[in-house]
């Protein structure tokens, strides 16, 4: 997925402007001209100059280039499903990991991904079951890293 150089450069330029604007509101050290805004301002200024240079070098060359170019190899249903499953699995883990607990969310994330990656459901279920239990025991018992249990809290003594 290639984004037009000009579009990326303009986005980076906008980012530098935003950083400089935000940094201008940071307080200064008492009696000094420097403060928390100085370093981000220096960096954002350098980013702005670099973005302008990218813009200048790519302006003529990329005028005919589309805004986004997607590789023909990934323009198929399977690729889109697999990529969507990766995002969905991560979103599910981040959003519901605490409330539903690792065992449920981990199993849904891993099982869903394995199915999306083309495994038959029986194999996917077997791998998911073995791996989730192994990982849970390893993290909690061996490494002493607590993993949330969610509604399975009542199994705390076994897991």
């Amino acid at each position: 997925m290639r984004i037009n150089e000009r579009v990326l450069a303009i986005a980076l330029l906008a980012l530098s402007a935003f950083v400089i604007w935000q940094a201008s509101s940071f307080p200064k050290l008492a009696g000094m001209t420097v403060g928390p805004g100085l370093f981000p301002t220096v960096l954002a200024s350098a980013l702005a100059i670099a973005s302008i240079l990218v813009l200048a070098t790519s302006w003529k060359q990329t005028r005919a280039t589309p805004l986004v170019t997607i590789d023909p190899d990934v323009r198929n249903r399977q690729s889109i499903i697999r990529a969507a499953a990766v995002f969905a699995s991560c979103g599910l883990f981040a959003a519901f990991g605490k409330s539903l607990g690792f065992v449920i969310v981990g199993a849904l994330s891993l099982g869903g991904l394995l199915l999306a990656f083309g495994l038959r459901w029986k194999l996917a279920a077997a791998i998911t079951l073995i791996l989730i239990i192994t990982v849970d025991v390893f993290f909690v018992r061996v490494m002493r890293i607590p993993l949330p249990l969610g509604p399975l809290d009542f199994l705390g003594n076994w897991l």
Partner: protein
Amino acid sequence: MDPISASLAALGMLLQPKIILLMLVASVFGIFVGAMPGLTATMAIALLVPITFSLEPVAAFAVIVTSTAMAIFAGDIPGVLMRIPGTPASAAYTEEAYAMTRQGHGAFALGTCVTTSVIGGLFGTAVLMIAAPSIANFAVKFSSYEYLWLGLLGLTASIFVAGSSLLKSMIAMILGLLVGCIGIDVAVGHPRFTFGETALLDGVNFIPAMIGLFAFTEVLRFALKPNTHGGETHRADGPIFKGQGALLLKYRWNLLRGSSIGTFIGALPGAGADIAAWVTYGIGRRFSKEPEKFGTGHAEGLVDAGAANNAAISGAWIPALVFGIPGDSVTAIAIGILYMKGLTPSPMIFSTQAPLVYSIFWAFIIANLMMWPLAWVAIKSSGKILSTPRNVLMPIIFLFCMLGSYAINNSFFDVGVMLVFGIIGFVLEENDYPVAPVILGLVLGRMIEEHFMSSMMKASGNWLAFVDRPIAATLAICTLGVWSVFIWRGVKGLARTGSASTALSNS
């Protein structure tokens, strides 16, 4: 503690059955990850970080060192047998090695890769053991000015060696530095760019960011293009080590040259084993008596680069331990782990934590010696390793990415950080922006800002104070010299673009 006592104490700490067992497990893990095309040594280490939590510092670093050394060697296995480098560090000589395989010398090529890796790794370790304490003794005199210039020089070097467009490398590095600004600032404790999110007050957690940039991107890339790493797998039949002695004796100078240049490149911030291998392969061909044979399955082509990539991983620890400036992506993670364990990389670490530092040196020696027998087993079972279905492996790796990101702080917010950085890394790489400078910027940002602010306050508006001390002045000349080259090349590039555009519009 004197160096000999510290060294012996470190060896005693390392030669515990538990640590040796951990190193063996780490070796198997490193070999597996390194041998799987698409999985890098950096990814292996990023996934190991949560495991290192429960370990003592000595065991944690022994695991990291062993996995890295094994992964870099194991990257040669699919390169030789499938013509697909397992890690980027093997890419430089994959064609050469595969050509040997097609001639029926696959096992011999792998034997050369193992032997040169072991010798290169031991050479790099020897340099690390001698150079790091000497540089540390010298660096004790450094003030904030020297550290500031050194940090800037490190960042500048990383842009030059990133192997991409200078401008794009610089942008990637500034993005990393800007991300490093998120959180409470070092001067007055003011929250910056947190947007009211308390989880960001301590800054963006570096490990989830790293997992996102290096592991999530690979999983996403596989999801989009699963057939990228297909291909025919040859078998490594025949003796592996027979005839290696004669070969290495014949090419002893190549071995020495590859190891030395590899260690030096490894010590440069941002330049790791992959760049070391490319540079030394090129040098090997340039100075060979038979340059026409390169690319046709000529064993000499494996010697320089095979030694260089393993030498580079030890070299990378020199600036990491002495200055907290990572030599490559793996040492960037190692610095993060040092901080997590309450240790600060600095010249003082050689006196305050001498046994730990020496245990890292010993871990390199033991890992490299373990490589010979383990590599033999790995080569003999390469068929099984390479046939692991990636559509099973990638979802499992992804589960560990999420779990590893969570486990750093027991925070699901960090899983989101991993996701965001994964997307950023994917977009950057797809558009030819390298991601290694992002990590370097993120790791060095806080250190550079701290020294920048303290230098600004000490100087009180007198800019000459920044170059008042001899070492600071020398480092400043080097840094400004490299910047001048950068600007000159930029102006030349712009002029070329301008004339090309004029030619286009005239035609």
